[in-house]
């Protein structure tokens, strides 16, 4: 075990993977200097500019070249700086990387890890703050991962680096400096959730930075005698349906919390999956459908807070169980 930040955990995972396999290389803007969040710190010194490749500001080419490299036998890590800039490479992600294997009948695979930091970044406004995980979950051909802790970032990045599919790897922009113990011998399987806390009254399902926000809410609720189970999905495609269903069978109540916009989001998918199979009171809580504003008063409106979660859970518990839909 070693104490690491979320960023250091990613560096450690890359260092291990690049040492073990010389086909793993990194493509991206400013990666030679360690990346804008230090998530590549020291790697250029160790592996050289041929493997930590500084690129022009050309997102379409970075992503497209990653596809070509993968088809030619490499395992590129593609750095897109922030999720918002993935828009400049959307054809390459959607039409080229995700569909290649299917469209060409399995003649080639595209084992790329596409790192695109997600979420609200303080005072960075609408074009540096999006959470678009549901866009990618909707896309056949990709794996979608959203780690919330240094341990997850280490273990899931290592798992992504040996995966033969394109992996959309969504680190959160405000988690880089968060720290925690990391066990480098711990493997976490893509698609496996973690039951962070067991509880009897309600199941909270979340991922990425909202895990920490949910934990604050759970402490407050515990003080009120409300015992909440917390599940961190970690992988959004595939996602651990069984872990969620098992918890909901026990608690009979589900609240999904995500930082992305509430409507048309992945929370709705989880709610649907559960209510199609179980009698369960199920709700989702996300951001209002507004771009993230710059002024702190506007930015605050786009955040899901622990107080909102507390209020939501209290309201759900106050509802009579006869109103629970059955199926």
């Amino acid at each position, binding site marked *: 075990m070693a104490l690491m930040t979320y960023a250091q955990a990613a560096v450690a995972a890359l260092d291990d993977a690049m040492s073990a396999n010389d086909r793993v*290389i990194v493509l991206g803007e400013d990666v030679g200097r360690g990346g804008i969040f230090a998530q590549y710190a020291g790697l250029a010194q160790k592996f050289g500019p*041929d493997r930590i490749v500084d*690129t*022009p500001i*050309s997102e*379409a*080419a970075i*992503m*497209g*070249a*990653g*596809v*070509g*490299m*993968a*088809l*030619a*036998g*490499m395992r*590129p890590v593609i750095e897109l700086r922030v999720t918002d800039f993935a828009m400049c490479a959307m*054809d*390459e992600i959607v*039409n*080229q990387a995700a569909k*290649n*294997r*299917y*469209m*060409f*009948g*399995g*003649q*080639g695979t595209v084992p790329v890890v596409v790192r695109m930091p997600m979420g609200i970044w303080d005072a960075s406004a609408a074009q540096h703050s999006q959470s678009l995980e549901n866009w990618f979950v909707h896309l*056949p*051909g*990709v*794996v979608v991962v959203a780690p919330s802790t240094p341990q997850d970032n280490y273990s899931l990045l290592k798992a992504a680096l040996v*995966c*033969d*599919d*394109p992996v959309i790897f969504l680190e959160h922009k405000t988690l880089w400096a968060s720290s925690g113990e990391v066990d480098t011998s711990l493997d976490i399987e*893509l*698609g496996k959730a973690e039951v962070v806390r067991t509880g009897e009254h309600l199941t909270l399902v979340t991922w990425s930075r909202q895990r920490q926000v949910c934990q604050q809410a759970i402490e407050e609720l515990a003080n009120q005698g409300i015992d909440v189970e917390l599940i961190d999905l970690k992988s959004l*495609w*595939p996602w651990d349906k069984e872990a969620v269903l098992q918890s909901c069978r026990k608690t009979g109540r589900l609240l999904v919390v995500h930082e992305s916009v509430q409507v048309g989001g992945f929370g709705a998918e989880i709610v649907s999956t559960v209510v199609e199979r179980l009698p369960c009171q199920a709700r989702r809580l996300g951001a209002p459908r507004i771009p993230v504003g710059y002024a702190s008063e506007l930015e605050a409106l786009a955040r899901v807070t622990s107080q909102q979660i507390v209020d939501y859970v209290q309201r759900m518990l106050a509802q009579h169980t006869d109103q629970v839909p059955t199926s």
Partner: protein
Amino acid sequence: MVRIRAFEDAAEDASQGGVAVYGQATSGRAKVRGPLHLSTGQEAVAAGVCAHLTANDYITSTHRGHGHTLAKGADMTRMMCELFGKAHGFNGGRGGSMHIADFSVGMLGANGVVGAGMPIAVGAAHAQKIQGRPDITACFFGDGAINRGPFLESLNWAQVYRLPVLFVCEDNQWSATTATSAMSAGAGAAARARSMDIEAVEVDGNDVLAVYRAAQELVNSVRKGDGPKLLHTRTYRVKGHVSVDKAAYRNPSEVEQALARCPIKKARALYLTMPGARADVLDQIEADAQAEIEAALAYADACDPPDPETAYTHIQTVGAGQWH
């Protein structure tokens, strides 16, 4: 060239009535369904360039990719099966004409998005360089692609890293149903490449010997490690944008002039001026191509369609089939 022409003519015939675009109805008779983008009249570019490539070299292609695929060495029968949507097709019926590919001969795929093959080619060439291979990548793209961002991004990338890639502009003068000249500022692909200090050669794309010689020099230079080069071939799209597009928006005299410059006719005439030339050799080439395409059509016709269950395979490994 003759094999490509035979393939295009047969594919066009098999597609008749099968595309509901430009206001036309489908009849359901078509054996080749959906949009079919023909390279009739452009055969000299594919043949002249691919003659210098081995199966270890890569190519990426456009939505008009049959010629490149055949010239790179792909099996005609499996290509026709793919166009017919049959199980024996290169992609198991998942790709059709627009996504024709044969990775086993280094043909990394036709592409339904204009210019999208360019960064993929650059990445393949970058991998070849890193891996220390003696191989190169040839990247075919159309004249319309030079107005998309990936064109600029790819040329810049290739030049910055001095990659072993030959960009081949197959300039057929038409961007879908609009003349490219009306939509592109400046003198085209070669001029834009030169602005990045990439050596560019312009050649008559209907003269197969001219393409062959120019490509030979450029391929040798790229293979030697001289960095990326660009070959700008000027040819003509004889057919419409897709097979059912009669291209009524064009001046008929423009097409007549192009037909008079048919690359196959030109090559035939040129060959016959050479000492010792024998017309029967050419006739035999055409007869062989006809026999090959007839066999390919018959096989594709008789071949089974894909099992619908195969729709759930080759999507991804992790999480594949989870919600089948």
